[in-house]
């Protein structure tokens, strides 16, 4: 016992070298990126002054403007509501075919993954630019953009949820002689229901926030007013609008949190 002291190290030499190497590589990437960007720090020193100046021009907020914002704000929320509901309806079948355990075959699986990737890799605002060209400016373009962007998000998360389900429950229903639709309704949907509600409401919450800037590209909502106010240096109107948007976002976040807590 006494003569043998046993040696123990958490990592062997190779692992240690790999860990040190990882840190060096990460540091090199950060430094390289900084150099590449060639950012000038010239304006940083004057930034506090500029911020103070801007805040000064924003104060006091032009509360009197807000009645004009009620309509556009409502439109913003509606874009998010309609866009999200449309997205949920379209995402459900995509989720079904992009989950490994429910997809009919390899081709449908690949199609599902493709839809998810295409939808997700393009930002809402870029979709909105496309749809404004297609449908003209207005809420329709914004709604469709919101829906198209959300499909990928919803289908991906719901698809992953389907992959996590307990297949024993499905087997139990299958053994009674139920067909595919009944298996879906009795075996699968009850298991993913909390996620379905939670993810949809969460996406709606994201969409409310995204919809506030859709107006920048002419796709409807409060963004139109905001953009005009910034463009005409009406800073007091801008600050009033920002407060109004903040209030709407807080409320939608509250609703989203409540709904997700409620559904089990």
């Amino acid at each position, binding site marked *: 016992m006494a003569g043998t002291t046993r040696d123990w190290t958490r990592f062997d030499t190779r692992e240690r070298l790999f860990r040190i190497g990882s840190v060096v590589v990460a540091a090199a990437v950060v430094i390289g990126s900084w150099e590449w960007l060639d950012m000038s720090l010239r304006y940083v020193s004057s930034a506090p002054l500029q911020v103070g100046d801007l805040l000064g021009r924003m104060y006091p907020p032009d509360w009197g403007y807000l009645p004009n914002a009620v309509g556009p704000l409502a439109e913003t929320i509606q874009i998010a509501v309609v866009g999200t509901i449309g997205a949920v309806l379209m995402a459900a079948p995509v989720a079904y075919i992009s989950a490994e355990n429910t997809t009919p075959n390899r081709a449908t699986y690949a199609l599902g993954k493709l839809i998810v990737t295409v939808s997700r890799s393009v930002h809402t605002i870029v979709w909105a630019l496309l749809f404004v060209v297609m449908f003209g400016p207005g809420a329709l373009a914004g709604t469709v953009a919101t829906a198209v962007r959300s499909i990928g998000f919803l289908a991906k998360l719901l698809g992953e949820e389907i992959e996590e389900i307990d297949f024993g429950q499905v*087997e*139990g229903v299958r053994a009674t002689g139920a067909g595919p639709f009944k298996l879906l309704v009795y075996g699968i949907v009850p298991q993913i229901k909390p996620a379905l509600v939670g993810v949809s409401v969460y996406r709606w919450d994201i969409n409310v926030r995204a919809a506030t800037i859709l107006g920048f590209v002419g796709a409807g909502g409060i963004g139109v007013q905001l953009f005009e106010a910034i463009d005409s240096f009406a800073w007091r109107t801008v600050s009033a609008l920002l407060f109004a948007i903040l209030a709407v976002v807080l409320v939608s976040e509250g609703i989203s949190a409540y709904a997700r807590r409620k559904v089990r």
Partner: protein
Amino acid sequence: MLETENLGKTYPTGDEALRDVSVRIGGREVVAMIGPSGAGKSTFVRCINRLVEPTTGRVRLDDRELTGLGEDELRNARRDVGMVFQEYNLVERLTVMENVLSGRLGYVSNWAALRRDFPPEDVERAYELLELVGLDDMENKRVDELSGGQRQRVGIARAVVQEPKIVLADEPTSSLDPETSRDVMELLTDIAVDRNVPVVINIHEVDLAERYADRILGLHDGELVFDGPAADLTEESKGVIYRGEEPPEATTRIGTSEPTDAEATGRRAEPEPLSAED
């Protein structure tokens, strides 16, 4: 009457889980299938309603061949086979009543199923079964609020509400305590008499098998090595079933892997109630 003929299953991994199992089960006999873990008990019952697709052999239920049926016909045939599972396999987030009524899914339209609109006689039958299994007034409870024993009772009610021609139970007691296990075994044997259907129970507790079953099937390594009345299960036969020991000379009723012999044993062990039925 359930009849399997040379039933076999080789999984894609190359595992031969079941080989040449030929049995006939009818009347209202309670058949316990025993054997060590991995002997193929679960594969056998799942091959009957083709939750697992058998690779060889045939399954017949009342002269209807289940092997080789198309999708739609297979679904219709599954309505006649009630199944009880080790892990209950109930839909956890649905209510007790929804789970019991799901046993009637094979008989209602998709639209009715979606709206939970089952015929009044199904609902009445479901209520009666809930009383039978001792879950009166629990119909609106969600299954995830129930204990293991209560869940298994729901599972049994779901299987029986199908009005099946046979009930298959895959390790129905393995997740339960000894007391609840006996209750569940009693319930299953009662159902055989009550509904006049055979009940096949996979089970690894040999004492429960001996106590509740009329007939015992012993599987070892995918092969049927014992088929006979519970009273005939000797220490030697248990050795054959559980440890793969060579059967001692001709004194015990042990089938071999040869289908003709197994078929013969199956016939020899045909239960009394069957002849009474004719």
